[in-house]
């Protein structure tokens, strides 16, 4: 815990829509953005499905919350770790995911990618470097 700011990691391991966990996790992230925290999100196992692009929920009558991920940059939530092994196991590549970016105010508001693709071992390092891990 550097300078009193706690490191929070939100872990997403579940697919969207079959259960509400992905949506309600995102609600926590948005509320948490109002606090002084060092925030990261982890997407692994079926959690990577949350980031897939072209989601269209019209026919199941459930709200499509995937656009909200693209708004996270405005809340200064800019570190979304995505596990490569989880993608590969599911036949997905980075191209199958939404493009999610943020404007870096320390770099003349340059647009930078929020998705950070990591190996399983690197994901384990991210997890092991937190003060609080919230799992949904």
């Amino acid at each position: 815990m550097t300078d009193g700011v706690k490191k929070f990691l939100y872990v997403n391991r579940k697919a969207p829509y079959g259960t509400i966990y992905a949506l309600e996790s995102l609600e926590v992230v948005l509320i948490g953005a109002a606090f002084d925290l060092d925030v990261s999100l982890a997407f692994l196992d079926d959690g990577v499905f949350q980031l897939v692009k072209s989601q269209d929920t019209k026919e199941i009558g459930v709200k499509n919350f995937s656009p909200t991920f693209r708004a996270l940059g405005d809340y200064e939530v800019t570190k979304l770790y995505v596990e490569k092994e989880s993608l590969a196991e599911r036949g997905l590549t980075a191209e199958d995911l939404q493009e999610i970016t943020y404007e870096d105010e320390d770099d003349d508001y340059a647009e930078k990618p929020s998705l950070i693709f990591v190996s399983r071992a690197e994901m384990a390092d991210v997890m092991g470097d937190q003060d609080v891990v919230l799992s949904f």
Partner: protein
Amino acid sequence: MKFGILISEGPYTHQASDTAFHFVSAALAAGHEVPRVFFYHDGVNVGTRLSIPPQDERNIQQQWTTLAAEHKIDLVICIAAAQRRGLLDQNEADRQGKDASNIAEGFRISGLGQLIEMGIETDRLMTFGD
């Protein structure tokens, strides 16, 4: 053809009650009959009139109440499962000394025998759960 429907999970948390709703709507549209939907396990929570979903989300309880009224569907909540989870009609509240009830219009509370009866009297039994 007659379909009986068993819903085993609560609203919003699991997609089960949504899928069941779309299935029942499609079955009715195709001319089939759905005489009864039975709510068991956390499925009983679909029948609360106290839920207030966000305005941009569907209201699952109201969807069922409306569909049931239009098509005379018997919406039955299992009494044993409901008592554990805090779903009550006014009768049950009075009998148990509880100061409030929360069951929604169009739903009724009854025993598990209604599930067995549904299995006997319909041509197909569909289960939607977790």
